[in-house]
């Protein structure tokens, strides 16, 4: 494929993602419309002064028509102004900049764990379908999907922190300040978060690999006398790498959701704590800011996957 062809695909995907981003911001802002009663009075909380209520009315431009409210909110958000917390008055963007690295560290570690454990499991199951290894891997996968991440986190804390005293139970350290302490705090939450991912990667890899390994193409390779290992690595895995890409981008989305609860277990000051406290205290700018950031991350990831997809698999471009 020519370079200009590639650029054209990337351009088209970028254009296609614009409506999704705009609609998502619309949904994020529209959440405000779900607040029952007079929004300003509800958000100001009990015993709020009239002045406070007026401030909040001003903040969201509640006296203006809806689309004007939305427009000015979007304009500010696009310039990095996600307004201030109603409780602490801290700029929401500052809170997010402080919390996001903790969340990203866990999610990235969990993704790596899911791949590092899931891929070998999937290969082992696919090369001997129907064997006890296959049964074992599929049983692990079923459990991994059904186990609540936060409960797994609690079990890990009980065993590795309280009983063996190997790893810290709670808290987080910045990766920049002390990489070693930071990783040791992030390992248990990442493993708790990775359980569903391991299952998903192993399952997907197994099913697509089994399909490929039983295909005519592979039978021909066997007939040609190629060693099984070379068939697996050069022909099998190369063909399923595209499927794996889809799974990973899907997992990133799910893990961003699950991390909210896992962070609560490990008392990590990340995006999860931010949005849960925001929702409990009706600190709406914070809630909107966190959702907005997460949606941007997901949309960007989907876009990257789409582009990688069309680069890896030339058939898609047509």
């Amino acid at each position, binding site marked *: 494929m020519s370079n200009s062809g590639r650029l054209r695909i990337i351009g088209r995907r970028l254009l296609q993602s614009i409506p999704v981003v705009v609609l998502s911001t619309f949904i994020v802002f529209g959440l405000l419309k779900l607040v*029952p009663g007079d929004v300003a009075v509800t958000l100001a909380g009990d015993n709020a002064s009239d002045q406070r209520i007026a401030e909040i009315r001003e903040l969201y431009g509640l006296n203006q028509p809806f689309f004007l409210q939305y427009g000015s909110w979007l304009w500010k958000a696009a310039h990095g102004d996600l307004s201030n917390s109603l409780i602490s008055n801290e700029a929401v963007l500052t809170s997010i900049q402080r919390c996001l690295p903790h969340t990203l560290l866990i999610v990235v570690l969990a993704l790596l764990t899911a791949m590092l454990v899931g891929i070998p499991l999937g290969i082992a199951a696919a090369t001997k379908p129907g064997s006890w290894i296959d049964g074992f891997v599929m049983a692990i996968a079923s459990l991994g999907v*059904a*186990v609540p991440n936060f*409960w797994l986190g609690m079990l890990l804390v009980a065993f590795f922190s309280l009983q063996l005293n190997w790893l810290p139970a709670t808290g987080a350290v910045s990766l920049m300040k002390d990489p070693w302490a930071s990783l040791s705090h992030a390992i248990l939450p990442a493993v708790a978060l990775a359980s569903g991912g391991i299952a998903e990667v192993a399952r997907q890899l197994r099913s697509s690999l089994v399909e490929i390994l039983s295909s005519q193409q592979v039978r021909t390779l066997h007939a040609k006398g190629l060693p099984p290992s070379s068939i697996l690595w050069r022909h099998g895995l190369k063909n399923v790498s595209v499927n794996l890409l889809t799974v990973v981008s899907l997992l990133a989305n799910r893990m961003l959701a699950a991390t*909210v609860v896992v962070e609560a277990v490990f008392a990590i000051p990340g995006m999860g704590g931010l949005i849960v406290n925001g929702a409990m205290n009706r600190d709406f700018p914070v809630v909107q800011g966190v959702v907005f950031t997460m949606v941007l991350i997901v*949309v960007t990831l989907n876009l990257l996957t789409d582009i990688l997809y069309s680069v890896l698999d030339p058939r898609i471009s047509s």
Partner: protein
Amino acid sequence: MTDAVMAPERRPGRFSGFVRWFVSDLRGAFSLTFLVALFVISVLGPWISPYAPAAQDLDAALATMSTQHWLGADDLGRDTLSRLIYGGMASLYASFLAVTIAVLIGVPVGILAGYLGGWVDAVISRIIDSFLSFPAIVLAIAVTGALGIGLTNGMISVGIVFAPQLARLVRARTLVVRNELYVDAARCFGGSTKRILWRHVLPNAIQPVIVQVTLLLAAALLAEASLSFLGLGIQPPDPSWGGMLARAYQNMEIAPEQMYPPGLAILFTALAFNTLGESLRVALDPTMKRN
């Protein structure tokens, strides 16, 4: 002889088909039995649970398993088994509520998008894409933040988050079904759009939905447990599996065994829904061979 040839082949009845499935698919059968048992226990909860779920007996606080308290008691001396039974009722109710909402929104939207096509489909598909880029629980938490804390609000938002998944599935299926000959035939005979959708498209597009609904029940159960664990779902003192885990976690160093009953209950129920879903996928798919 001629009679035997002329007689139409007798198709197995629904019940005997069910029995055959039940015997041939042990995992699916076991899951279904587990879920039915859970449902019966939940419904009978008020009559069979040994204590009232909120009854406190401070002498038994954090008690371990005993003949009085089969699964021990929490830090306020409330019987764990009783709370588990009542919490199960709440969890099942919450899961079904969320999935019902997802079906009521997702199925009609998917069918309309797939059948009408054109700009309706384009608009709906973009909206579906946008909703799918929200991490599920995050949107549910945000909606809870807007509507106010409570189980019903939380599960409505979980239902709204799940709806696009169903809509996308139904849309894809409808795209296939609407080009089938029998739909063309119905149109030629002057069937109204409404009638065609109800009588021909819906029944043929619904099959993958049944599988997906079973899988979504597991996801909804986990979402409810997560929300209640965070304190955004079922509010104490009402019992919930997620809420029980939150309490057990606070007292983990004194009574670690309190973490197991609610955790295992969530795990097994989610596992049963997932396993049943996979079994249904095989059982309902006419192209897959049954042994």
